[in-house]
Structures are given as structure tokens and as C-alpha cells.
């Protein structure tokens, strides 16, 4: 029911690659700012790489909780801290592989659509497709 660190990282990678990849493919042509695929997929990859680091931080914080849980709401609100960090790095121009700046509107719409979609998916429908996933700490392998 609650994931382990390993399971959270696996689930995050799987979700961002599969669902995030699919959503990016579909929404890039209609995003504001008219971005190219190389830009949106670079942003997606940045979210993924930083996300693994965030999981380590959340895991540390979780140790202070008796239940060793991470409430559903936290999973939604983590969009704020994670999104901010990605945006700051984009603004600082330290994200490799980007020729030009990413417009804020492009980033916001893309990031939030993917985040909310994955958050809903992992809190519900995901269980239909893999009955072992929720009892095995969110591990897929």
C-alpha cells in the first residue's frame, strides 16, 4: 500500500518514461510557446533525474514519521518544490542540451499536466494493471 524507496524510484522512472513520455508526445504541439520535441523531452529528462534525488530526500524525511508514510496530499504538493527547482535550473541555464530558454508558460503547463496525471494514476488506476505493485512497495521488478 505504501511504497519503499526502491519502489518509489522504480515507479517514478516508469511513470515519467511511459506516461510522461506519451503525454509529452501528445501535448508538445499544442503547448504555449511552440516548443520543439527536443526541448520538452529535455525538460522531462531533467524532472526525472532530479526526481530520483528528491526521493532520497523524502525518504529521509519519512524516517521521522512513525507510519513511514508519505500522505497522498504531499505527493500532489511536491509538484511545487520539484517544479521550482527545475525552473530555477532552467533559468540559470545549467540544464544541458537546451539551445534556448524555456518559456514559463510552456514549462508550467507541461509540468503540471504530467504531474497531476501521474499522481492520479499512481493513486488509483495503476492497481488495475498490476495487483502485486501496491503490496510490494511499488516495485515493478
Amino acid at each position, binding site marked *: 500500500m505504501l511504497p*519503499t524507496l526502491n519502489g518509489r524510484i522504480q515507479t517514478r522512472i516508469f511513470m515519467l518514461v511511459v506516461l510522461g513520455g506519451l503525454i509529452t508526445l501528445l501535448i508538445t504541439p499544442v503547448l504555449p510557446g511552440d516548443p520543439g520535441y527536443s526541448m520538452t523531452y529535455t525538460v522531462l529528462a531533467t524532472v526525472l533525474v532530479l526526481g530520483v534525488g528528491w526521493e532520497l530526500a523524502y525518504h529521509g524525511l519519512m524516517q521521522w514519521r*512513525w507510519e*513511514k508514510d508519505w500522505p497522498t496530499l504531499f505527493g500532489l504538493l511536491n509538484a511545487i518544490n520539484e517544479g521550482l527547482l527545475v525552473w530555477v535550473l532552467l533559468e540559470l541555464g545549467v540544464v544541458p542540451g537546451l539551445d534556448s530558454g524555456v518559456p514559463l508558460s510552456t514549462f508550467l503547463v507541461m509540468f503540471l499536466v504530467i504531474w497531476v496525471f501521474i499522481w492520479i494514476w499512481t493513486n488509483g488506476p495503476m492497481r488495475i494493471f*498490476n*495487483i502485486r505493485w501496491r*503490496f510490494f*512497495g511499488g516495485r515493478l521488478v
Partner: protein
Amino acid sequence: MAVIDPSAGTVFPTPGAQNYLPSQPAAGDLTDALLATDWWTDELVASAGIPIVDVPFVSVGGGIGSFVTADYLRIGGVDTSQIRILSALDHPWETYEYLTRVSQIPRGERLRSDSASRPDNIWGFPSYAVSEAWRSKNPATLWQVLVEPTFADFYTPKAGFVFEQIEREAKRIRYDEMLAKGLVRVVRRRAGGGYFTILTPPDGATATKRLAFRSQYVHLAVGYPGLRFLPDLQAYRTEHNDYQHVVNAYESHEHVYERLMTTPSTVLVRGGGIVASRVLQRLMDDRLLRGAQTTIVHLFRTFIDGPNDGTGSSTPHPFMKRKGADGWAYQGFNYPKSVWGGQLKAEMRKLEGAERAAKYKVMGGTNTPYRRYWQQQMNQGRQEGWYQLAIGTVDSMTPHHGRILNQLKTAQGVYPLEVDFVIDCTGLEADIAEHRLLKDLLDHGGAGRNPVGRLDVDRNFELKGTVSGNGVLYASGSSTLGGYFPGVDTFLGLQVAAQEIQADLAKRGFGKRIGTVRSTSQWLKWFSGKQI
């Protein structure tokens, strides 16, 4: 009709027990030779005149544990003809409903169970909160499950809704076709592989007194071995023949609340867990909403007033620190949430022996959820003086002018306390050897005990030491507490066990693996209510 023998050590009733205990000698009974033999041959059983029924899989118990296991197997493609559920119960929720109802969770009240712990739905999706919101066309439960536990109490489902949904699923998987009524006291290994499970059907239902189910697989989900009174309360009841004024929360005690509505009285409540919370809510609701004039004295043996853990330490490790106040240790559910899939589940799975027992100890201890409504009631009661706390134990109890005089032993000395009723909410569980079937397995079936003294099961819930040729004996539920997976005695725990058992059986060729395709197609059937 549930019966309780007032002198028995357990308050746990056996439904219709009188029907299962024919006193006349009858054909096809267990013989001394059978009872003395650990491994039974087909000839030995036949020579006793006991008819043999062949079925590959037998589940003993017929409560929620048998139900969720049968549910998994049916979803895994096993036909009803391949499964028999041996049970004294007509419905899987019967015992559970009895226990929750008398301990003050009738159908309209909420259980202490997570939104995604659905015995009627192996996927846990949609969760109870989603279903309730859809049903009531009110998003309040969705909001609650979103912001829990930080900004609201944990969402928990109403007992009645849970039972209705189990009933729906039971019909869908054709549960009744698998049910064989009767009591089971003996499971023995069969020479040549598999097991014999001896069923005592209701008197007159069959030509012989016993039936022998010959199966390759047996699953045991017999529930609590027994629920005990505190020894001092039991002694008082027996000695003074008073079963009216001293009651256990797990026996029907509605007469107490009825008396309290008509006569201002004092009640002593003993215990600091969820049942004590529920009984207090009933007493306080009756006082605040219905005009009863009850004074409550609440006796804690262990008074918790700050951070705590299951070892009783008041300075627990910063990473294993539970909240507590006013006597209570607060925890949302029976276990810390991560035992059902997260960190604590993963950690426990690797531990053996004393280390495992120690981990159980740290996360254990009596606890109850923090619910805002209960906090308000208790605060009001403390301020107005009708909810009083005491810390200690009871030295002696004596009848005194129609009341009960307790000598309370506290840190400050012994004090007399006269009350009209005592409600025992301590929920002591009996040893597994007090259950006849489990004792027989320990004595004759090769079963052993785990580090906390219950049945020793492996990670796949196979009962260690009981293998019989190509046969496997599985166990799940309360009697297996202390294994590699904690939380066995909960809805989700029973489902975790059922999932492991189903997967293990599928590997052995009994039923199919529930992979993505089967899982998805079966969920669609569940969602549309299609019978399988």
C-alpha cells in the same frame, strides 16, 4: 443463534454450536486409532466408516480470510467445483459483524480500516472513499481522503457498506456453491500426499457424523483462537455468578447501555485501545445526545502521555516515535501504515527469530486512532467532571449493595471505587493451543510456533513443517501473527496473504497467474458486476 458458555475462558461465540455437537454415538466417527496417528492412509479413514470427499482445495474458517482467498482463486480462474470452504458461518462477514457490532461499531458506524482495504476488491480500486462519494453524490469523502491525516482524520468506511460489498462479491464469485457447513477440528497429513480435513456437519445433515475432505491443498483462516476476559474479571463473574454488571466488550452487552439510559450510574471502562474508544464514544453519545447521566471512570494500566513506542519507552528512538496523550497511544490503523507494502513490510521480511520479535514489540502496543470527535467528547467530559481517569490495576472486586466495589491499586496506594458496571475492553487474545484445530496441528501436524508464539508460516504463508508429499497447508490471519509479514489480522493483511497463496498455487499449476491481462479483464468484470 450465537451461544456463549458463561463459564468458558473465551467470550467468542460459536454460531449454532449446539447443532454441531450430536451427543449420540453415530456411524462414521473418529476412532482412537485415527486420533493417535499423525499420517492417515485412505484405508484407515475408510475403515472408520467416514465417507471421503475429493476436492483439490479446502479453506477452513469461512470468515473474511477464507473469503478473500477464495476471491483471489476464483479471479485466478479456479472453478467453484475445485474449492470447498468449510465453515460454521452462513456468511463470511458474520463473525466480523458480530465482533464489531457488540464492540460498538454497528453497520452505520465507521471501521478502523483504510480506504483502499477492500476485502471485496483485490485491486483496492476504486477505494471505499471514491465509491462512497459516487454513491452519495457528495465529494466530502474524496476531500477527506485527499487531505488525511494532516488536515482531517483518516477516512474509514462504514461497516454496513463493507458488508454489503462483500455480499455483492460473494454472489459474483458464487461463494455459496463452495460453502460446506460444519465444524472442523482435525486436519491430518495423508500418507501419499495431501491432507484429510474432518468436517462435522450439522446434526442430521449427513448420514455419518463426520466427512473427510481429501485435498492436495488446505488453507486455514480460523480467526482469533479465542478472546479472553481479564482473569480478575472472570474470577469475579464466576465467584459471584454476576454476568450482568461485569461484561466484556466482545460479548453482547446492550443491557448495560439500556440501564444507563434510565438510571444515573457509574461505569468503569478498562483498556486503552480502539474498543475502549468505541465504548467510550457510545457512553458519551448516550450522555451528550440522549440524556443519560453516566459517570465514566477510565482505568489505564499503562498511561501514555507523550511520545511512545511498543516497548513502553517514554524516550523512543526519533525514528520510531508514536504520538500519545491523555493515556492513549495514537495510530491511524492497527499497524503503522507502511507494514502493508512499505518500509516496515520490507524490513520485517528479512528478520528472523529474536530480531523479528523485537521489531514486532517496537511497533506494537495498544493504540487507538486520534479522532477529532472523540477528542472533543473527552475534553468536555474532563471539564465537566463526568469522565475521570485512573491509572493502575484492580486489586479486588466485591459486590456491595448491588454495586461493585473495586480496590484500585495505583502508584499512590490502594483506593476503593464503587461502580455500577465494569466494561472490559482489554481484548486479551487466547493462546493458539486453545483452538482445538490449531492444537491438533501443533501436536500431530508438524506445525510450529514463530518468534511471538503463533503459527510459523513462511513468506508464501505455507505453514512450516506441515508439507505432505505434493500437498501444501497454508494459514493466514490472526493465528499467524509474528511472521515475515506483519499486519496479518487486518483486511489488507488477509489480502496480502491471499495474493501470496494464490501466486504460489498458480506456480504449482492450480489456477492461473494473475498478470496484467488477466488482472485488467477481471477488474472490468468486477466493475460491471459480472458473475464469474
